[in-house]
């Protein structure tokens, strides 16, 4: 068990194992994404109320779910890097932020596009949407803070603190926005009703959610590999690696 943690902290090992995982996970992810998208777009029946526009659900919901989960991954990595001073956790945390921001962006944009035919407006200040917007700000804040520091080691620590503060705050933000919304207007538009979803729609959705998790993992590993190379550029193993690299 401890030797595994020890290995996890070793950059060359992590770089290599991430490469091995990516070699099969990346193709699987891309195939799963293609299958899921085709299935959802072309092979499912339209929703009886929303018509065909509901097909956006196959990217909207997975993106939103993984964007939220990504924040927790980032926070856990940040905590590990702060508590056990593990440099690779720092790398993981730094690599999470841009992916999370991208996924949050996808969720917001697709949600907005979905809203137009369904609600007749591009944007409503609904609790979920507002808290997703705030989540995007949190991700961008981490990216901005990281870039602002010249000393990257300090940048990692500062971002870890910020992420942990955000972790405490996300439930508060979510709850507050929820109450704020219920204060303003009746819940005329409900995104998550109790309507049981038909299995023919559920399976492609589950496939897409799984693929987005895999996509997040792939991007995370790829970002981490690049980050490891940059940080370890002066070490022998990276030099050897670069020597074998044919441009």
């Amino acid at each position, binding site marked *: 068990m401890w030797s595994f943690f020890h290995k996890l902290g070793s950059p060359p090992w992590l770089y290599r194992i991430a490469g091995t995982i990516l070699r099969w996970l990346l193709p699987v992810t891309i195939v799963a994404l293609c299958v899921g998208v085709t299935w959802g777009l072309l092979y499912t029946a339209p929703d009886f109320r929303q*018509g065909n526009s509901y*097909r*956006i659900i196959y990217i909207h919901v997975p993106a939103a779910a993984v964007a939220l989960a990504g924040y927790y991954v980032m926070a856990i990595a940040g905590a590990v890097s702060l508590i056990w001073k593990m440099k690779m956790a720092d790398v993981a945390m730094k690599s999470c932020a841009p992916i999370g921001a991208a996924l949050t962006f996808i969720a917001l944009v*697709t949600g907005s596009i979905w809203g137009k*035919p369904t609600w007749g407006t591009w944007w409503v200040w609904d609790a979920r949407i507002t808290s997703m917007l705030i989540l995007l700000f949190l991700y961008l804040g981490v990216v901005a803070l990281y870039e602002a520091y010249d000393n990257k080691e300090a940048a990692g620590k500062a971002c870890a603190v910020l992420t942990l503060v955000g972790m405490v705050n996300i439930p508060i933000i979510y709850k507050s926005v929820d109450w704020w919304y219920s204060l303003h207007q009746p819940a005329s538009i409900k995104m998550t009703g109790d309507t049981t979803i038909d299995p023919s729609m559920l399976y492609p959705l589950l496939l897409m959610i799984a693929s987005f998790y895999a996509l997040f993992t792939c991007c995370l590993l790829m970002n981490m590999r*690049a980050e490891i*190379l940059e940080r370890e550029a002066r070490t022998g193993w990276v030099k050897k690696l670069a020597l074998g690299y044919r441009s």
Partner: protein
Amino acid sequence: MYFDSLSAALSMDGHGPYVWSAYAICLVVVALILLAPRRRRRNILRRLSAEQKRQQHGQIPGNEGK
């Protein structure tokens, strides 16, 4: 296949532009987050290998050990 024809799939009873644009934006962003780290990693490796070649050919004394 749910749709009868390609044009039906494209229009989706009037919802086509929304659905397809959402998927297109998603595709672009996903492609970006997949390709950016790949490019970054390649650039780093290329830069490092170029640096090493320069050092080998340049024969700067005292620099090999660094």
